[in-house]
């Protein structure tokens, strides 16, 4: 992340300056090097496989063989009756996650920093992190057990309160709520760590001065805390925006069934059915490439807007 500034390397001294920086930070670069190599080998080099999105790939012949078919698979996807639905579901689920899920860790971090008793604060923090470590399979298992119409605890409570049991798991209207709600519950604690760290870095003298001036707690939050962690918030917002077309496959796949395709079928599950179940590898790669390009466009746009409005950006 960088803050916009006016410094720049003097011309003609760039190479010398670069060597100086490398020498000065050589241990940092040494720590960074394994990850760099890892991403080159396992993320960038495999990108050459994207070529099969433009070919009629046949297993066994390798990714560089097969006839070129141009944009055939992209056209086939957009002609599919499910293209609009899968894109819509992907965007909506991500949007709900962004709108409802993004503020929660921030609010939680602000609240938790107001807890005076350190022991209690630590207990609450630790308890809030724990769901993050539950695997997706276990998480969905818990969800099913809680919300099943037969003997699920939620339905038992509803019935005891005089209501009628609701078939949450096969009702399309409930899918997004269950998906987003469980994601928020599972991740808000862990996501708040970075905000807690940012709030911890705020000068306590500002709060003391505000207190002397008689500013209320709520106004302190809005006029001191939030503005001073705004850069952190913006960076994480940009990163989340870049995932708007990437709803996690595993959780949707475990939660969905034909009964809820209407709201649950996202691009990643459609790719799974086409690519793995139907062995249409080229078609699935083309959709995946389309998905990634849209994500990149969102990240780029968000980065530009953030730089223009808040002088904070990823690059």
């Amino acid at each position: 992340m960088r803050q916009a500034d006016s410094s720049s390397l003097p011309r003609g001294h760039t190479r010398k300056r670069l060597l100086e920086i490398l020498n000065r930070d050589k241990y940092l670069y040494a720590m960074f090097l394994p990850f760099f190599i890892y991403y080159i080998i396992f993320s960038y080099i495999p990108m050459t496989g994207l070529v099969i999105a433009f070919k009629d790939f046949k297993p066994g012949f390798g990714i560089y063989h097969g006839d070129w078919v141009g944009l055939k698979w992209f056209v086939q996807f957009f002609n599919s009756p499910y293209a609009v639905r899968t894109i819509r579901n992907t965007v909506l689920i991500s949007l709900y996650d962004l709108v409802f899920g993004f503020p929660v860790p921030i609010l939680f971090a602000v609240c938790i920093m107001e807890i005076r008793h350190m022991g209690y604060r630590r207990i609450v923090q630790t308890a809030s992190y724990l769901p993050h470590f539950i695997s997706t399979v276990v998480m969905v298992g818990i969800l099913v057990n809680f919300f099943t119409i037969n003997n699920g605890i939620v339905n038992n409570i509803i019935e005891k309160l005089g209501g009628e049991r609701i078939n949450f798991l096969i009702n399309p209207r409930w899918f997004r709520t269950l998906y987003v709600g469980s994601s928020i519950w599972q991740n808000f604690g862990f996501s708040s760590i970075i905000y807690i760290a940012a709030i911890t870095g705020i000068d306590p003298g500002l709060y003391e001065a505000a207190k002397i001036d008689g500013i209320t707690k709520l106004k302190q939050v809005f006029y001191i805390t939030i503005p001073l962690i705004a850069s952190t918030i913006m960076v994480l917002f940009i990163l989340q925006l870049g995932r708007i077309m990437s709803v996690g496959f595993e959780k949707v796949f475990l939660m969905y069934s034909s009964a809820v395709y209407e709201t649950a079928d996202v691009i990643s599950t459609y790719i799974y059915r086409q690519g793995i179940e139907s062995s249409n590898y080229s078609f699935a790669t083309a959709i995946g490439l389309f998905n990634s390009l849209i994500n990149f466009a969102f990240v780029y746009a968000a980065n530009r807007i953030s730089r223009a409005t808040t002088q904070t950006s990823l690059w």
Partner: protein
Amino acid sequence: MKRRKWNGKHLISIAICAILVMSLAACSTGGTTGSANPTSSGSTSGSTSATTTPAAYTYSGSAPIADEPVTLSILTTNSGSKILGFADMAWWQEVLTRANVTLEMEEIDSSSYADVVKPRLAAAVDLPDIVKIPGADDDMSYIKSGIFVELTDYYDTYGYNFAKQFDEHTMLKGSITTPDGKIFYTPYIYTTANNSRCLMINKGFVDAVGMQLGEIKTIDDFYNFLTAVGQNDANGNGDAADEVALFSRSGMIQLWSMFWGLDVTGTFQREPDGKVICGYADERYREMLVFLNKLFNEKLLYSEFATANYDTQTALFTNNQIASLIHFVSNCTSYSQAIDPNWDFYNDEPIMQPVVPLTGPHGDQYVYGRDSMGSLFGITRYCEDPESAFKFIDYLMSDEVGELTWYGIEGTDYEIVDGEIQFKEVYLKSEDSYRSKMGYNFDGLPSYQLGGGYMATQCKFVRDMSNDVLSKYVMNPSITFSYKLEEENEVIRSYLADLRTNFSENLTAFIMGTRSLDTWDAYIADLEKMNLDKVLDVYQAISDRQAASK
């Protein structure tokens, strides 16, 4: 030159760097095969096999396949060997001993087999001698890629036992033959007449509601039974609301179409007049949906029929909550045992009883058979001795292997008395999953289901019912698997995946009522827009070819 002074900070940085490198090296080797559980019988797994060329020995269909030991490697599912590894399955180990074969097995959980193996086949590197292919290679992509060796000549030269199997299962050879007359795979062969999918009813529930099984003959009679179950505490546990009148789990509700003369599970079927129809677009299918929707609305059909799995079914049986379901007749015995562990296999009638098929609204009366073609196995180009590999597979099709892997070992599991097989208690009681541990019903190798073997483990009632009654009503798929021409594959690849999504989604929606059956015409119109007619043309051509080849 100023000598650098190493201090603690430098050492800590280097240590952190070293730890990160080591942890990355460990992480990057993980997760490539998901839930793969490589096992081997005595040698390292995953390696290509080193085979010995058998000396001059003529294989003629019986063991051994060669007089010198042969080592083969195979990638397959672990179905049936989850309780005990393949290396400990005594019946199969006896097969290997007699065949003079050492098998290096790489087993992957069947639930994730396709997801793990498909990418491996797409990469086509480092494959073992024999691979159980995921699916049936419908579009012949693996065949065209040259991963697998052509077996046509091997069938002609060494297919002694295969010849007998093809005589019994007349459509099978045609199914695995490509349009240009070549064969690349060997099948696992299902029994078709002896293990049909039929309606089974909880006899205890029938008695509890004051009916007789013999009274339940038609769809209407069955509806009356379900209604009675829904209104009574049929299992007598004090809770009148816990009974599941009609149970179904994910992917099984389509079996109900057989009472309307349809084969919706196969999607396409050939009618007596030769015309191919799509079951999901037929008026009779709509009638079936009306019936099931009624059951769902009246809470007689299990509310989670679209999502329930085998574990749910097991739990409901253990609590004796299920009144009826459609499933393989061979499961009646195990379901009865699950309901009542004290149920007497030798003397009591089964609790879950197969019934004479219901007569449907149009007079159809069927139980559902199956296509005899099961999983397919191919011999890869990495195999150094494909001839021995094929001989071994042919031997697995023999009577000797069938009896060994379904009846067990003579003297231990059964005896021959006056020419009849008499099973011993250890086999019939199968305590602690004895039969499964020995290798009963293991489909990880290219072999076959012995019809008598399936029924051998059933109580007399079920055995007699299956052999003498249900076998007369079997409806096998009218269009079996067969390879398609390139242009046919193009149509199927373009349209069938989306059509299947539409079928399964609307099946559930119509039954649950989230989509009204009044929109049936719109549903049919959508199918037409999705080019169902083009796919129908393809299956018409396939069916005509199959009919002509009989």
